[in-house]
């Protein structure tokens, strides 16, 4: 009975997530359609697409997908001992609606993106996320980018409550993150980008001690070999302060220092065929000062590699193929955790 109720609860949450995703997509498309039909010379544009993923780890899929310099590499995941839930097929639909606003102060682009992860056999993990962005080009060489990102009520999976194997509860997190990035082209070949990010993560009731306030800074250096290839180097430092640091008796202080280093290569192999290769290294040093806390003197190493090919088929259609592989290891658990994601997708510009 308890299992049934738990499953029902998770299904309700999953349906809520799916409804949010569908409503977001429908609203965006509905908003775009009359704009195109009634005023064809306005600068609105809409892009939509979907990818079908195979993943070998349901619990790690979204964290791996979002791990990038501009993404959310510190998204919480289950402890390594609790991942490995299983394989699944995941459909990732997305819509991007953008508008360009030229002015005497430069060009500004506003955009909204809505993305969903819809799991085939583990629908309770389905989730949506929203990106609101404003990009302003002061000059062709200096661009300021602002983003608000939220991923509401994201299920991470079953987690031990108060360190008891007999008391497993669904852990859910809602993230609100604000990002600012200043890009400046130094010369024909060199570009520097400075990124800052701050936000909060709110966990569901049994895990509120993990609520985290975080901030991140880091530079990116881009070397443009020519118009068809570039190399991107980046390093980020992030500090996360969890509520649990004030509640020593819970032995659950998830505060951390996060280091993220990345190298990526993007190249046009042919006129319409592009290749991206990325390698990331992440290091989480947990900062709990409580010797009875599982994370005391704990750290985590994450290695992630990804490759993506995109081919523009027609004026409005592109095809994508992607492979990602991550490897996680925490020093307070004896197991390694791997996650491999493979996808094929199509994108259409309306």
């Amino acid at each position: 009975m308890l299992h049934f109720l738990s499953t029902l609860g998770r299904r309700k949450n999953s349906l809520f997530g799916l409804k949010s995703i569908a409503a977001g997509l429908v609203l965006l498309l509905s908003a775009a359609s009359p704009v195109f039909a009634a005023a064809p010379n306005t600068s609105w544009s809409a892009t939509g697409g979907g990818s079908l993923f195979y993943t070998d780890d349901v619990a790690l899929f979204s964290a791996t997908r979002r791990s990038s310099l501009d993404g959310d590499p510190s998204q919480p995941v289950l402890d390594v001992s609790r991942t490995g839930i299983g394989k699944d097929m995941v459909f990732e639909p997305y819509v991007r609606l953008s508008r360009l606003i030229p002015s005497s102060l430069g060009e500004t682009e506003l955009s909204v993106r809505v993305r969903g992860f819809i799991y085939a056999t583990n629908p309770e993990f389905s989730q949506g996320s929203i990106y609101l962005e404003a990009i302003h080009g002061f000059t062709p060489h200096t661009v300021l980018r602002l983003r608000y990102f939220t991923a509401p009520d994201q299920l991470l999976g079953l987690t031990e409550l108060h360190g008891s194997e007999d008391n497993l509860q669904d852990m859910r997190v809602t993230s609100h993150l604000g990002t600012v990035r200043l890009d400046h082209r130094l010369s024909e070949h060199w570009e520097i980008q400075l990124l800052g990010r701050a936000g909060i993560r709110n966990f569901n009731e049994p895990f509120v001690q993990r609520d985290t306030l975080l901030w991140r800074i880091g530079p990116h250096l881009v070397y443009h070999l020519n118009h068809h290839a570039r190399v991107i180097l980046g390093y980020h430092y992030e500090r996360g302060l969890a509520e649990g640091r004030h509640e020593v008796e819970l032995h659950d202080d998830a505060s951390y220092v996060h280091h993220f280093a990345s190298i990526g290569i993007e190249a046009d192999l042919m006129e319409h065929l592009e290749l991206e290769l990325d390698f990331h290294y992440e290091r989480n040093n947990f900062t709990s000062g409580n010797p009875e806390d599982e994370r005391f003197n704990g750290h985590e190493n994450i290695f992630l590699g990804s490759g993506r090919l995109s081919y523009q088929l027609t004026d409005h259609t592109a095809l994508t193929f992607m492979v990602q592989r991550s490897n996680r290891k925490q020093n307070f658990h004896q197991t390694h955790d791997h996650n491999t994601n493979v996808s094929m997708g199509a994108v259409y510009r309306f």
Partner: protein
Amino acid sequence: MLRAMVVFALCLSLLGCHRTFGIPTDLVQDLPALASVRSVYIEDLAHGEDPHLVEGSDLVKEKIKERLVQSGRFTIVDAPEEADAALTGVAGFQRWYFGMESFYGLEGSLNTQYSGIGMLRLLNSKTKEPIWTHEYETGFFHPTQSVVDRVADQVADKLLSAATLADSKNQAGQ
């Protein structure tokens, strides 16, 4: 599944929408008039649009000019008063982006796709009446063909083809 189908249906509803840039969309092919056109003046094909919305107009214009001169059928003149007809309208390409985590827009990144733009009219220099019109047809890209070449080649191919037809009909009528 139902939700996915609703979203898919809405996506399809957007497929029929396209921009016209304020240019009349009527199709004209006045072959007798085209047969007498020998000199052409090509106007600025940016058509006053924001350069972020229509890019590469100069490149497309140069490519069209090159193709028409190579054909020997038309001469390209530098002043409108010297031309039998003027090629006007908008031609170029627009960038679009996809992906989720990366920032896009304005400068964008290599993660950029291109869609061709072309709405052109060949106008009689004296009467300003349309002689020939062309609207860019979207379709499959050749892997090695740039979007500039695709837009320009389409204009040149269709105009030269219409001119050949006009000339043959004109000769048959004489």
